């Protein structure tokens, strides 16, 4: 039987960050990475850009060198793990083979879920999650194609951008009352909706798809507003679920993802988790949360790897943050943009130019932010929140003019 000192299940950003840190800190130990897809590790985040033709498959690869993994003695197995024997420290694979581990990292990410509606198995209904999905969408999303996008959450809106670039006629159906509800308040969500409508999209909020049917080779999409829409393609982006079915039968504690401590370890010794399948500490709240974002994935992977080698690395928690480009309107959100109890919020709105800045404070510290139509220095928002910088007099200046973000930071650090 094959055994490796470090085994990583998954091949996304968290997995690769972990493998690299493991190799850097333990040059002589064996590292095995198990990938379910039969291609080199790639970035799902890059898939929309494959759809638009901006990059090809190679452009999605997380590391570009042809022998990148081989050169670092990171062994990649293309296989599917079916179960874990934590007692024997063994992984059972679909092929019937098994693989032993010294320390195990579960970085299997998440998969899209289809709501339980009739017709979602019809041809022409796709997720945008794998390279194959992206290719299937590209085949149908030609000039003038009618596309219905189910879900205007974060992932939906990333795909939206690509679908618009394909010159498709797009209808977006979102069950909640605004676009990207987890990233936008009502003001921002409505600004975004108006922007999309001006670009020729149909945006239906507070609307649910009730079912799909085949009408002469096209898809008929029925909605709870009594209307229906004929589409060439339906893209489903209504949520994701952690890929952790294979841990059934172990004692690993799970909530929305595998619960991990400040060292990225699960409650089962020598089993760690990272990225979208893991529920780690939220920097802002101190509670557990799944932050399915690239920066969290790579931080998790890096910290998990250090701890797997016996070093003690403590993670203070991940800051939830997102950036989105919706047909040219760029938005970002950080931390507790909704505001916190006993805190204050401020905002500046220029509806005509789709510019909006909303800040949330606790005392004189920034705890959250939400921006639309702004790209300059937005990373400073992360810096201000995560460093818990005391803003002093700049708190009042920001309350009066929230757009002085960069100045507030520079004055506090450079003057």
């Amino acid at each position, binding site marked *: 039987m094959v055994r490796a000192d470090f085994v990583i299940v998954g091949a996304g*950003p968290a997995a690769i*960050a972990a493998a690299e840190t493991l190799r850097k800190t333990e040059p002589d130990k064996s590292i095995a990475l198990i990938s379910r897809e039969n291609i080199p590790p790639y970035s799902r*985040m*890059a898939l929309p*850009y494959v759809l638009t033709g*901006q*990059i090809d498959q190679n*452009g*999605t*690869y*997380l*590391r*570009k060198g042809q022998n990148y993994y081989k050169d670092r003695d990171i062994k990649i197995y293309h296989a599917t793990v079916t179960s874990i024997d934590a007692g024997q420290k063994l992984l059972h694979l679909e092929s019937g083979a098994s693989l032993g581990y010294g320390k195990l990292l579960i970085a299997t990410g998440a998969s899209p879920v289809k709501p339980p509606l009739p017709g979602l198995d019809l041809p022409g209904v796709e997720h945008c999650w794998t390279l194959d999905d992206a290719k299937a969408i590209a085949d149908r999303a030609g000039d003038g194609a009618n596309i219905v996008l189910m879900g205007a959450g974060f992932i939906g809106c990333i795909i939206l951008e690509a679908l618009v670039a394909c010159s498709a006629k797009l209808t977006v159906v979102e069950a909640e009352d605004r676009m990207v509800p987890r990233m936008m308040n009502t003001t921002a969500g409505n600004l975004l909706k108006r922007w999309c409508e001006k670009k020729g999209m149909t945006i239906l909020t507070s609307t649910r798809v009730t079912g799909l049917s085949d009408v002469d080779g096209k898809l008929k999409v029925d909605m709870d507003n009594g209307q229906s829409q004929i589409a060439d393609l339906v893209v489903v982006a209504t949520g994701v679920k952690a890929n952790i079915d294979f841990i059934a039968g172990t004692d690993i504690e799970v909530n929305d993802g595998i619960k991990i401590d400040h060292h990225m370890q699960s409650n089962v010794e020598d089993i760690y988790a990272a990225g979208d399948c893991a529920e780690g500490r939220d*920097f802002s709240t101190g509670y557990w949360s799944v932050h399915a*974002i*690239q*920066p969290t994935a*790579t*931080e998790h992977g*890096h*910290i998990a790897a*250090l701890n797997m080698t016996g*070093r*003690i*690395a*403590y*993670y*203070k*928690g*991940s*800051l939830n*943050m*997102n*950036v989105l*480009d919706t047909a*040219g309107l*760029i938005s*970002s959100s*950080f931390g507790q943009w909704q505001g916190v109890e006993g805190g204050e919020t401020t905002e500046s709105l220029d509806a005509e130019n789709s510019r909006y800045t909303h800040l949330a404070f606790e005392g004189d510290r920034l705890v959250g932010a939400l921006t639309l139509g702004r*790209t*300059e*220095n*937005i*990373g*400073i*928002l*992360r*810096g201000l929140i*995560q*460093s*818990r910088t005391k803003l002093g007099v700049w708190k009042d200046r920001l309350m009066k003019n929230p757009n002085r*973000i*960069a*100045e507030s*930071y*520079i*004055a506090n*650090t*450079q*003057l």
Partner: protein
Amino acid sequence: MQKTLHINVDDCTGCYQCVLACSDEHDKSFNPMKSRIQVFKFEDEGRFVPYTCTQCDEAWCQKACPTDAISVDANGAKVVSDALCVGCKVCTIACPFGTVNYNASSGKVIKCDLCGGDPACAKACPTDAITFVNADTAQFDKMRNWAGKTDAGTQQSA
């Protein structure tokens, strides 16, 4: 010897020559929006602060990039490959200094690349407020201290 940009805020007169030189060097334009160095003006304090990437060791931008588009060149600069960058902007929120910015006209991100080892901003500065010096003699100390506070939540002990 690795060299680094050193900024002495006290000597800056706010002439914006660095900004124009950077824009000219990278974009063949004189457009402050295309410059990778910015000058912030503080009217109440009567001060000017040139501001750009410190090429920090932590390299949040590089780690956050999903397409391997940011690499470290021979000068220690974190450099964006236009061929690999897809314009996803994750690096622009990951960098806690806000010194990676999206350039809508190219659809890519832009940041200071130290001009391949001969920074145009330092050459253009008439008061030596911006100099390109040996890394161990000068640092952006204040920014680096702050970087320590902002680290991605990691505290490591051997």
